[in-house]
C-alpha cells in the first residue's frame, strides 16, 4: 500500500527562478531542509538534514530543467516536483509517495510491542 501527498501551488515567479530554488542546495536550505547536499542531475545524490537530527538520502531519478525533478528516497518513497508556466507565474505540483506500508507490515509487527519505535518520524503519533 502506497500513499500520496499532493500539492499544487502557483508562485509569482518564472520557471527558471523556481527551478533554481528547487535544485540549488543553498536555496533548498531556505525552504526544504536545514542542511542540503544535492547534485541535481540524473544519478546524482542528495542528502537532507533537519534540525531535529533527521536525515534522508535520495538519488535523482529525473532532472528536466524547469520542468520536472524526481527523487527516489532510500526508504523506498519518492517525490516528484513538476513545473508548469501558467498565468501569473509557475505552477509547482508536488507529489510525495510513501514507502510501501504493506511491505513494511512485518517491521511494524516487530515494533508493535514497543510503545514507541526508535527513530520513528511519526512524531505526532507517539
Amino acid at each position, binding site marked *: 500500500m502506497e500513499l500520496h501527498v499532493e500539492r499544487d501551488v502557483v508562485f509569482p515567479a518564472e520557471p527558471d527562478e523556481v527551478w533554481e530554488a528547487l535544485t540549488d542546495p543553498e536555496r533548498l536550505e531556505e525552504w526544504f531542509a536545514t542542511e542540503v547536499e544535492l547534485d541535481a542531475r540524473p544519478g546524482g545524490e542528495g542528502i537532507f538534514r533537519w534540525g531535529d537530527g533527521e536525515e534522508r538520502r535520495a538519488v535523482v531519478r529525473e532532472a528536466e530543467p524547469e520542468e520536472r525533478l524526481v527523487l527516489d528516497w532510500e526508504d523506498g518513497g519518492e517525490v516528484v516536483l513538476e513545473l508548469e508556466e501558467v498565468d501569473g507565474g509557475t505552477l509547482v505540483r508536488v507529489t510525495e509517495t510513501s514507502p510501501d506500508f504493506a511491505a513494511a507490515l512485518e517491521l511494524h509487527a516487530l515494533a508493535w510491542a514497543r510503545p514507541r519505535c526508535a527513530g520513528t518520524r*511519526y512524531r505526532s503519533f507517539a
Partner: protein
Amino acid sequence: MDAVFDALGDPGRRALVASVADRGTATATELAAELPVTRQAVAKQLGALADAGLLRATRIGRETRYAVTPRPLGDAAAWLVEMGGRWDDRLAALGRSLARARAAR
C-alpha cells in the same frame, strides 16, 4: 484504502486525527471545546474518520470515545498527516524564498 484518502483529504479532518492521537482518546465534546466549531460538526467528522477505519469508536454511556486505529493503518494515517503538514510548511517557505530572491535582483 480509497476511504482513507477521502477521509484525510480535508485539512480539518487531518487535524482532528492528529488531536485524537495527541490525546490518546477523545470525545467530540472534548475536541469541540478547543475548536471554533460545534460539537455536532466535530462528531460528524469523527464519524466519517471512524467509517474510513482511521479512528476506533467506543461508546461509553452517552458519549462516543475515539482513538487512532492501531498500526499499520495508524502509520499510514500518521504519514499522511505528517507529510501533508510538512509540504504545506515547505511550500510556504519556498514562496518566501522566491520573493526574497526576486527582491534581491
